[in-house]
């Protein structure tokens, strides 16, 4: 692969690119889904591909291919150059200089590839078994799966940046249906790690089952304004959506509700949000980002005060500063954008039981749907569907569903009054967050 990377870089420069960058990846992924004690689907895959970014007369063009034969490489050089001709001049599109060493973070564990297919199947089965055995009201485990990926990433640019690393991860999850008196409620849980031995299939299955069963008997609560406790799953989704407004790209393009607010109190006192690209436990950690810039830790909100934004090379150049190592890529098929790595929400933490004990009326929100369609990171407005448990006189009780929760993100952040002591990693966006207590939130029900 590294050979194809070098050939492509050379070819781009020899065919007229003023500067060029090649990003390549090669991976093996495996997935097993089980249903009712048997394998439902077993997938194994090999994937490779290369993306080329060329810079010519101040414009950028991009092209990619999965075929690494010479003819295909020539084709993408021509395509990238043609795309650069149509793109507008962009004085900020530049390559990063080779300055610093990649971050020292280990993101591959050889234990990943020592696992056998039988062990992978057993893990998925163990998750399903744990969920089914957790409660007689579990109707079925709609999905129970194990998946892993072992990828190698390469980058080289004409300015001398060169690097490669190997990344591995695995996870298992269960999506469980509980049933009582004809009512069905669902529960989801994950377990993630660098190798199968890191996973907790029993805990995952039981938690998914518990999350479904505790909602059985749910009713619609009255429409009101109340205190909500977002559990880590729900909190992670919210901060995931919010993070797009914390990129320099959103700020520079006039679509961030945080623009011009650095130094202002944007969240409740004590609330600290950090983008941590080198957290040893974060699945989005890496030695360098999609442009070869070393990953690092970037404070976004400290004690409720907005500290700064996430940058890639281009948005950094525009503001006269360095990239924060947030030049993210979806795959070799996409140009680097700007986005979070691992988001870590921290602050003074209070035992969860104590927090709930102090709430007279409220809702413990354990599930939110429609966050991606219902939360608008540009306007800051959100309105989502939730389910959870009512809190009355400091006790968690009656489950509720078909409820909406609405507000605006900034008011909600400012109304965060406490954080729980139950911080955990939630995959998807890779967020480390505890439960979050927010006052004065509108909920809509009957």
């Amino acid at each position, binding site marked *: 692969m590294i050979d194809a990377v070098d050939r492509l870089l050379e070819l781009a420069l020899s065919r007229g690119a003023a500067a060029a960058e090649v990003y390549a990846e090669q991976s093996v992924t495996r997935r097993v889904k089980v249903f009712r004690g048997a394998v439902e689907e077993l*997938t194994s*895959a090999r994937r490779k591909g290369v993306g080329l970014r060329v810079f010519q007369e101040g414009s950028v063009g991009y092209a990619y291919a999965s075929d690494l034969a010479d003819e295909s490489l020539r*084709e*993408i050089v021509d395509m990238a150059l043609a795309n650069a001709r149509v793109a507008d001049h962009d004085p900020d599109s530049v390559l990063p200089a080779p300055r610093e060493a990649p971050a020292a973070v280990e993101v591959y564990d050889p234990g990943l590839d020592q696992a056998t297919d039988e062990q992978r199947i057993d893990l998925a089965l163990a998750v399903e078994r744990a969920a089914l055995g957790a409660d007689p009201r579990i109707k079925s485990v709609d999905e129970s799966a194990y998946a892993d990926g072992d990828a190698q990433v390469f980058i080289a640019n004409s300015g001398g940046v060169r690097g490669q690393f190997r990344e591995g991860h695995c996870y298992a999850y269960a999506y469980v249906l509980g049933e009582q008196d004809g009512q069905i409620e669902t529960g989801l849980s994950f377990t993630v790690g660098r190798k199968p031995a890191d996973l907790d299939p029993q805990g995952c299955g039981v938690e998914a089952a518990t999350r479904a069963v505790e909602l059985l008997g749910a009713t619609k609560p009255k429409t009101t304004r109340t205190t909500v406790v977002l559990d880590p799953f729900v909190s992670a989704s919210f901060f995931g959506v919010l993070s797009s407004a914390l990129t320099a790209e959103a700020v520079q393009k006039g679509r961030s509700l945080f623009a011009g607010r650095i130094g202002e109190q944007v969240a409740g006192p004590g609330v600290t949000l950090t983008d941590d690209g080198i957290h040893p436990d974060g699945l989005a950690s890496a030695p360098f980002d999609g442009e070869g810039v070393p990953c690092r830790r970037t404070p976004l909100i400290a004690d409720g005060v907005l500290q700064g934004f996430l940058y890639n090379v281009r948005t950094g150049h525009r503001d006269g500063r360095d990239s924060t190592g947030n030049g993210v890529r979806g795959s070799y098929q996409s140009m680097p954008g700007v986005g979070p790595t691992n988001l870590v929400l921290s602050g003074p933490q209070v035992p969860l039981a104590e927090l709930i004990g102090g709430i007279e009326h409220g809702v413990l929100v354990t599930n939110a749907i429609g966050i991606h369609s219902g939360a608008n990171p*540009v306007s800051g407005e959100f309105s989502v569907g939730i389910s959870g448990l009512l809190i009355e006189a400091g006790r968690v009780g009656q489950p509720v569903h078909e409820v*909406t929760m609405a507000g605006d993100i900034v008011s909600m952040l400012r109304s965060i009054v406490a954080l729980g002591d139950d911080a955990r990693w939630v995959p998807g966006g890779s967020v480390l967050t505890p439960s979050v207590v927010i006052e004065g939130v509108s909920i809509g029900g009957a």
Partner: protein
Amino acid sequence: MQLDDLTADLLGATIRRALRHGGDFAEVFAEDRRSLGLSLEDRRLERAAGGRESGFGVRLTSGERTYYSYSDDLSETDLQRAADAVSAALRGGAGGAPVTNLGAVAAARGTAVVAVPPAAVATDVKAALLRAADDAARAADPAVSQVIAGYLESRQRLLVANSLGALVADDRTRVRFTVNVVARRDGVIQTGYESLGKSLGFEILDEDVAQSLARAAAGKAVTMLDARPAPTGPMAVVMGNGFGGTLFHEACGHGLEADGIAKGSSIYEGRMGDLVASAIVNAYDDGAIAGEWGSAAVDDEGAPTQHTVVIEQGRLRGFLYDGLRARDKGVAQTGNGRRQSFRHVPIPRMTTTCIAPGEASVDDIVAATDHGFYAKSLAGGQVEPASGNFVFGVAEGYLIEHGRVTAPLRGATLVGNGIDVLKSIDMIASDFEVKSGICGKDGQAVPVGTGQATLRIAAMTVGGTG
């Protein structure tokens, strides 16, 4: 090796190899996809990216089990390796289902003719449309502060061969144009979105089309600047046409996909013939509507697409099947076996899902509503098929008072349960329209359409901030 080099002999040998230790069915799906995406933001064409990917997947099924292996190397070695990987799961078995010999490749009969292949049009012509959209949106109102316009074209050539003797080729061209407008006034920010997507060529676009999409998106964003917070609670909801079809897609469509039915995780399981909607509701899925974004001549298993009635006068009449679930149930495939790419197994998916139009006019419906919420355009949603609970965001909403559309309302979400909501549909207008979108399920994104006329739901929960 290229897609065209895959001979019937090689495909047949791969299928036999996959089945050599057992199994009921084997398939090879190969594709070659070229795409180009352009995007404009901040008045500049800043992303011009294209590429080509090709690859194949070998699938083996045995009872309810599926084994899949894919690679992006279209080589004989990798085809053998993939066949070995799937057959290894059944090693020790005595040999699988007989394999029907593959004949000549049957080219799928296209649903529409591509008049202007996008690849034949110069890239700067496409870029000019984005600039025209940008100018039109900015000229529409001084409050417009940002325009993000996108152009996407793709040509996917595919070949599917299976042990039942199918050997089908398809050639799909899709073009999509999107405009997102941000408007800002006195510290309030709102967005508006419009799109046009078809399984057709560049003939669907010109400067007029680009400008009118841009003006419509700008209109939405600017109108919403004056919006006040939406109310909260149950009320009558008038759902707009086109994007309003997201209602049916989320509230019902996902629950009709046969994988959920087979697993008992859909509320529609065991309810065939039951009244699941108001008697005025007739609904169907149609993957064969000529040129629609969600259409194709065949699905991703090579089965012809079709018009499938799912609800007739409120009664449940049909489910959406892929090959695996159809064979398992002993029913006919409905052409709904779809996949994002060769990297995914086909699963039952909607194509263009529609509620048939009625005879009322939109004015009649509004006039008949004393107090309610007019959800003119929806932003997308999500459903839990097992419970039928769904939610979707409203992109453009208004208050209805005394039979008249009055103030714009912002920040609303609609929540409800599929069957409850379908049963409360009490008026359907005649202004039927299909809109294009992307639907995600099991980590696979596929192009879909929603078709609907304006309709009224007697009561559902609106979640606003007012």
